[in-house]
């Protein structure tokens, strides 16, 4: 492989700048690992400014009345659970704290999304922490519904035709609080999509945008995969009312709920690693320019 500063390779020993520019990956990753782990033991309590997007979602949930039905989607692949779990845990806790609010839980993305739901439920632990919330009366779980975007659109038009039974095989008619309250997507007081994979063209996120956002003008929020959030900004705040930006968004929401959860911990570690990466970029550029300067003949410096 050709090394940077190769014109100096005729020397017996490359310059320190050249050696630094061609440093192997392991030490860089090893230091990165330290920056990731340290904040987990020694929290930095990084200041988390709460954005309007998180505040809007918080206020919307605060304004929900008894009998309102919320659609909570868990459409993230299990390998992305770290990005979405903290946000959904915080939002679900907030929803469960509101008396009389009904929650329909569903996932449309990949079969392994059901595992994502299971993990969130294990953390929230409704039976233990919210004993007054009963399955079938306060919340139902429809499980994974395949079919992608076409299914999301059809579900918005007539939910119980697409999901006539819940995950456990019980017909939705047996849950009158849900069956009678929701006939189309417009009847959901709040729709929260968890995912964002594939950006606005994603076969689930795009479906939510078209159906609940553009067709039924629902109060639509996303618990977003941060890597694609930029694609959604043109739709905010007129069509998408709120976006939680991965763990940063989760940390904001945890702050609004006065709790310290996984989102806040992640943000500490994330800030440290970002600072490290920025420092590496700056250092590498400085060394690169210095190396280029040293490569010139002394007379032309």
């Amino acid at each position, binding site marked *: 492989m050709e090394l940077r500063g190769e014109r100096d390779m005729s020397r017996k020993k490359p310059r320190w700048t050249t050696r630094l520019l061609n440093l192997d990956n392991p030490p860089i990753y090893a230091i990165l690992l330290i920056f990731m*782990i340290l904040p987990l033991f020694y929290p930095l309590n990084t200041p988390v400014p709460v954005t309007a997007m998180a505040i809007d979602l918080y206020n919307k949930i605060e304004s929900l009345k008894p009998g309102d039905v919320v659609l909570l989607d868990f459409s993230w692949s299990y390998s992305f659970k770290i990005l979405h779990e903290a946000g959904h845990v915080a939002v679900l806790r907030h929803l469960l704290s509101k008396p009389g609010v009904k929650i329909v839980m569903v996932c449309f993305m990949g*079969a392994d999304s059901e595992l994502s739901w299971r993990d969130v439920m294990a953390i929230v632990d409704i039976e233990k922490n919210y004993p007054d919330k009963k399955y079938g009366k306060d919340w139902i779980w429809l499980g994974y519904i395949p079919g992608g975007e076409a299914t999301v659109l059809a579900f918005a038009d007539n939910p119980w035709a697409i999901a006539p039974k819940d995950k456990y095989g019980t017909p939705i008619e047996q849950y009158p609080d849900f069956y009678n309250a929701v006939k189309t997507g417009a009847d959901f007081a709040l729709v929260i999509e968890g995912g964002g994979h594939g950006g606005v063209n994603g076969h689930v996120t795009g479906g939510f945008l078209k159906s609940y956002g553009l067709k039924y003008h629902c109060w639509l929020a996303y618990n977003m995969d941060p890597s694609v959030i930029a694609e959604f900004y043109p739709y905010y705040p007129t069509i998408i009312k709120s976006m939680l930006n991965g763990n940063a968004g989760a940390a904001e929401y945890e702050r609004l709920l006065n709790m310290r959860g996984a989102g806040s911990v992640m943000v500490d570690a994330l800030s440290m690693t970002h600072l490290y990466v920025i420092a590496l970029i700056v250092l590498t550029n400085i060394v690169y320019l210095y190396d280029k300067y040293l490569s010139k003949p002394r007379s032309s410096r």
Partner: protein
Amino acid sequence: MVSTDPGIWIYSLLVLAVYSFVFKHNPAFRVAQAIVVGGSAGYTLWVSIEYIQRLGIGRVSADPYVLVPLIIGALYLFQIYPRLSWLSRIPVGMAIGIAYGTVLIPGIAAYIIAPLTQTITPFWTPNPLANFNAILNLVLMFCGVAFFIFTTDKFVKGRYGFIGRIGRAGLMVAFGAACGTLLGAKVTSAIGNIIDLLTKWLGIRLAI
């Protein structure tokens, strides 16, 4: 206390095997890769069968019309029988046709009209920063589109070539931002895995 759950051990060893890739491509990574791909395929198959039983076969007695999509869906299986494999084109064609038919019209509203109306916003509001942002959005969108449409030498090297160059700068900023957020997302995933390894596998208490 270190976990005694074999599931946690398998998970942890697979995570370590996957991350060993950052140091060097090695057999442990390849084994983990094969297990993940095979496991995912197997799990998806199981969930799909469960779904067909629950919302397909399980509904036939109550609604015999459910048999129609079940039979059409079963035609997929003729892929493995070359003489009748043409039958598998029926469900494929229907799936593609229905998907495009239902998505096309809302797609125009979602991907063309909505972003356009959001990009071109009033720039005479009382908030000067919002006005600047609106103007910048409009200019970068115009220049970005021009960069892709006007690609002739006469335009690129001519008097108005600066328009494309501004567009290119705007695109680079957008790609840079996308790359930065992607990096953040991947680092977050890594941190999450580390937390799992420390807490669930090694039983170390973190300062949460």
